[in-house]
């Protein structure tokens, strides 16, 4: 096999599902992050808008991803994120790391962290930070 550049140190590509749960239709942030992760050598599966937690968990299973990135701008994160984590676990994918980007009030951060969200990013977060933390979370 030829040696090709890989997304991980062990040679396995990092696979990321980028999904937009809920009803808001603004997906520019999700696309910017998807592209940044691609440029970092990762394989990104983009699901499009208005995904239910069930659809996201099912896609994560079918694609055997390492990471799920959720873009939530609707304010419904406290309903959506726990449900998605629960479904991932029910499918046997408790090792999948979940990241959230969007408008998340500070007072919600501790609870989201507590239920197992690996990283939370608001407006102005740098894609370098996201890439570094995604890599670290997967290889830990």
């Amino acid at each position, binding site marked *: 096999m030829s040696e090709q550049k*890989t997304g991980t140190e062990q040679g396995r590509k990092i696979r990321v599902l980028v999904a937009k749960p809920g009803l808001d239709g603004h997906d520019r942030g999700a696309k910017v992050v998807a592209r940044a992760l691609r440029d970092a*050598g990762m394989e990104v599966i983009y699901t499009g808008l208005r995904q239910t937690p069930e659809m996201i968990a099912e896609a994560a299973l079918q694609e055997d991803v390492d990471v799920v990135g959720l873009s939530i701008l609707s304010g419904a994160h406290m309903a959506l994120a726990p449900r998605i984590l629960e479904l991932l676990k029910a499918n046997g994918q408790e090792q999948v790391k979940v990241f959230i980007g969007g408008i998340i009030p500070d007072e919600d951060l501790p609870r989201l962290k507590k239920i197992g969200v690996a990283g939370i990013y608001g407006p102005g977060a740098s894609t370098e930070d996201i890439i570094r933390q995604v890599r670290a979370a997967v290889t830990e």
Partner: protein
Amino acid sequence: MTLAEQLLSGNRLALTRLLTQVENDTPEGRAALTELFPHTGQAHLIGVTGAPGTGKSSLVNQLALHFRRQEERRVAIVAVDPSSPFTGGAVMGDRVRMRDLAGDPGVFIRSMASRGSLGGLAQTTAGLVQVFDAAGFDIILIETVGAGQAEVEIARLAHTTLVVEAPGLGDDIQAIKAGILEIADILVVNKADRPGVENTLKALRNALELAHPVRHVFQHHGRLEVVEGPDETVYNSWIPPILQTVATDGTGIQELADEIVRHAVHLRESGDWAARERSRLEAELDALLQQRLVSRFHDQVSQSRYEAVLDQIFQRELTPWEAVGRLLDGNLNP
């Protein structure tokens, strides 16, 4: 229980993990393929190829819906998208067009990056297809990278190859170039509600007629004249039908699905199914032999020796042909 055994008993987590192992060509993945091989050879493999933007993903979505609703077949989809040649990363968006299939346990969609492979598929696409085949999916839809003229590997893998065109993409010279049209078992003009569809249909019909000359009987100076095609066997062979679809609203999907089934029947009755299966296995065997020989070569010839010979070629002291002779001399013995 091995992952392969779990997969055979219907475990979806085992299926998805095995797909990853096979995609990454790990020792576990290879062992599983060996274990699963006796369970393969059942599914109908349908390839979907065509230029970017012709609507391949939407068409695959509609076909999968159709095979689920009308025929209750279990459907797997392998969607291949390009990897960046610079970073190795990929963004795969085929699922965006396949959201109608969400929530149906009889459908399994797997996105796959091409990882530097140039034929429109990834190196391990055939392996993934085998895993789905062993897992009992009746129909496996394989969507290639948006393909132009040379990405014809899909025809080697699939039993039935759909080439998807759309109005306004090229003139009739594009249609008679070698390559992608020659591999079509069924030609689909998608987006058939768009202007220019007549031109596309005409160009494809003309191209097909050149490829499959038919027997013409016509009046000439008051007598019936018969002009034969070049070969009698042509009459018994499959002539690719041209179908029109609008994948966004489902127009023409029933007809397309009927043609796909008709093609499968044709393959079985004509003996072509077995012939294709055999040539596919031959291609697979050849590819494995090549891989194994190359890796044996690298095991036996040190990198420094290889570099030294490369230097000699670079200095024009040795031709590439002589170099091959020198590098292989005494090597590659089992």
